[in-house]
């Protein structure tokens, strides 16, 4: 039973990470029906942006725990968000907006190009900034005292502080999203646009701006996920966005793409499933080498039996 709770905690932490990224896929898809293939790279850039902020701050390693958590971490997160939002808006402007009326294959292929480009750009040029480490291999993420490596022991269950941060970030972001979507003008314009872009435009909504807002919100959450990833795994690398992005997309589909709550639920379900699969599937196929396979099998099963997703009220029928 202890093992079950331990894996539940691990799964929720992993799932929160997926959920934070998945929101970006789902928001953008809900409005422009584009699978933003480069979103995983936006997540990666968020992490590298946070790292760059830490470098600019003079690589503080000896700040006390309260100072680290209350000042260093928020500043790093803001730095990461600035980096990821800037890149996301640039890609939207340069790579996707010109293709908005093109056949559906075009933006998707463009997005693959953006994804490869961003990975390579970071790999080749991050280390060229004076004083920065070479990004061709993984970079150790800065230690934030009070979070990195700290644990809470609850009975037989070990909880990493980084997991607490990740889950906490998801809770805060979900509340923020709820507020944003339901109580702000831009958020409601987003809902309107996703329901009917033409009518929304007739009602005086600036659709271009709404789309930019969608990309920005998704990128902001992805940056937070990037920091959470760095804190949990202790390092970041230019390739980290590929698998995480793919999993997060799976989570978005699982929850029902286009549905923000669905993305959160889907992320958590996927995370827990992965954690449980490595523990409770007997024999060789339960080893952690297979966990990604189980996640993708789950994706295929969902598409067969419930293509609209767990919470998907929105019928998705796009050719």
């Amino acid at each position, binding site marked *: 039973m202890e093992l079950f709770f331990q894996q539940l905690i691990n799964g929720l932490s992993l799932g929160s990470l997926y959920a934070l990224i998945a929101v970006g896929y789902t928001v953008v*898809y809900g409005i422009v*029906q584009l*699978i933003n293939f480069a979103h995983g790279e936006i997540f990666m850039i968020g992490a590298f942006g946070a790292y760059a902020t830490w470098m600019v701050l003079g690589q503080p390693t000896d700040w006390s725990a309260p100072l680290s958590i209350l000042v260093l971490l928020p500043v790093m997160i803001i730095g990461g968000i600035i980096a990821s939002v800037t890149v996301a808006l640039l890609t939207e402007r*340069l*790579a996707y907006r*010109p*293709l908005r009326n*093109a*056949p*559906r*294959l*075009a*933006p*998707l*292929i*463009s997005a*693959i*190009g*953006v*994804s*490869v*480009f*961003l*990975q*390579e*750009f970071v790999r*080749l040029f991050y280390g060229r900034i004076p004083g920065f480490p070479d990004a061709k291999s993984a970079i150790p993420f800065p230690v934030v005292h009070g979070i990195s490596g700290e644990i809470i022991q609850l009975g037989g269950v070990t909880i990493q502080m980084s997991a607490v941060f990740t889950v906490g970030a998801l809770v805060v972001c979900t509340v923020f999203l709820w507020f944003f979507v339901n109580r702000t003008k831009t958020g409601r314009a987003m809902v309107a646009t996703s329901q009917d872009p033409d009518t929304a435009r007739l009602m005086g909504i600036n659709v271009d701006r709404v789309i930019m807002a969608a990309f920005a919100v998704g990128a902001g959450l992805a940056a937070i996920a990037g920091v959470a990833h760095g804190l949990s795994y202790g390092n970041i690398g230019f390739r980290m966005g*590929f*698998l995480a992005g*793919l999993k997060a*997309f*799976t989570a978005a*589909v699982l929850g029902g793409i286009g549905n923000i709550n669905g993305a959160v639920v889907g992320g958590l379900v996927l995370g827990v499933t992965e954690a449980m699969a490595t523990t409770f599937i007997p024999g*060789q*196929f339960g*080893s952690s*080498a*297979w966990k*990604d*396979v189980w996640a*993708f*099998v789950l*994706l*295929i099963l969902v*598409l*067969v039996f419930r*293509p609209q997703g767990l919470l998907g009220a929105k019928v*998705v*029928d*796009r*050719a």
Partner: protein
Amino acid sequence: MRVVIPDETKVRFRYPARAVGIAGAVAMIVSILLPWSYGSDALDDMTFYGAPSPLQLFFVILPVLALLLLAVPLVGKQRLGRWAKALAWNTSAKTASLAALGVVVVALAAIAIELGGLINVEPGGWVALVGAVLAVAATLFLPDSPEPTLDRLKSPRWLQITVIAVLMAVLLFTAAYALSLDDAGDFLVFAAFAVGIVLVLRQVGAFAWLGLAAANNNRVLVLSAFVVAFAFPFTQNGSDANMSIASQVLIFAATALGLNIVVGLVGLLDLGYIAFLGAGAFTAAVLSESAFATIDFHPPFIVTVLIAGTVASLLGLLIGAPTLRVSGDYLAIVTLAFGEIFRITMNNLDGSDGPNLTNGSSGIPGIPDLNLFGFDFGDPHVILGVDIGRFANYYWLMLVVIAMIIVVFMNLNYSRIGRGWVAIREDELAAEAMGVNTFALKLLAFAGGAFLAGVAGAVKAHHDVSVTPEQYVFLESAFLLAAVVLGGMGTVTGVLIGATILKLLPEKLRFFSDYRLLLFGLLMVFMMRFRPEGIIADERRQLEFHAEDEELATDVEEDLITHHAHFNPERKGFEL
């Protein structure tokens, strides 16, 4: 960048402009008699007076063309009669000058980089540059010519066939020459020249004429193309280095052609296509005589290849059946996920994380050469006094495979199935309403495409000698997709060109290898932005990307009608 010069100015300056243009062209022609480079290490030794290097000789073709296009109208346009009216003299001269300028710039840049600074450029190089700039500037001042109408001229059959044959021979020579250039600078200069020539020919209207000639002599064209491709190994004097590249290009091209059916004809975006190639390769590997093969059953290759194709297409059915009902975007991600599942599974079937089938990440090495009907593909032999090495054997085998794929593709394209596919691509709902069984057709395309990839994979396993999971990562799928997109979705020629470019350039530009993927990503974005239909555009496809272009729409319509004149419903196929 577009320089707009008012028409009145052009008319006023037409004589001085022509004179300056001719002077520029002559300057470029003279420049090859002068040295371009101070050191002999840069490019192919352009240090001599009066003895041009091969690259300089190629280059001079462009200014000579410009000179002819500028000078002939002065002396003998009347005597040329109908030909004179058919050519776009001025615009072609402008293109030729621009192309020459491009080659000069690339050449000077290569000299500067290879020898360290522009100081190493000798007078000849500068004369060529000044000449090219003069010619370009002058031709900008010439009045625009009307569209070329070369294709409306009647030309005798023998002329068409001769031109096709000559063209094929030139193509063979070009390919052999380009492959023989080991230096990246040489290769780039030659590539610039080749692109320039193609642009000039297009501007002259030669391609339109060729297109017509090709349509009239389809059989001759296809046959001569294959004869030329078949003859290629004889130009290599037994060198395995280039044949290895060539056979890799063909394996890649065969796979891309399979993907072309799925993406280009049916419009299903498959991002895990490499998994089918991998499935074929692993199947062939475990059934091979390799000491590391895990299954104790070693059928002859003919059987193996069928098993490999079947395994791949079964995987295609397995992944396609559930996901082809939901729509396109999901398919892209599911196939991507499937590609990952495949790679991880091949990694894990190593005996510790799962049953031992593939030896995990170390893969299956030591796969012996193919043996077909007692003929060992590893044996070099001599034909007509030319050494034919191991890779040439695989090259010929892949040529046969590609020929079969093309025949299938062409017949499908104009068959009931093919038209069903295109209908699905253009509007699935409408197609379904017209009674097209969309699900079955999509599944057929998916499984068929997988089968082709499986066959290519089986050959690849023997060609590469070893098979490891890391050869079948997502990036390879992206490359395949890029070959299809770059060349032109839905066309055979385009995909062949795209595959060649994507495989050949990285081999020839090794100094660039660190930036390869960066450029690849940019290329995909720019391609989608500026020429989504690819280098060779399928006309119907082009219309999808440029829906507002009325003129194009009428063209395509006329074209389809003429095509259907060739179409013989009795035979249920398209005459090749």
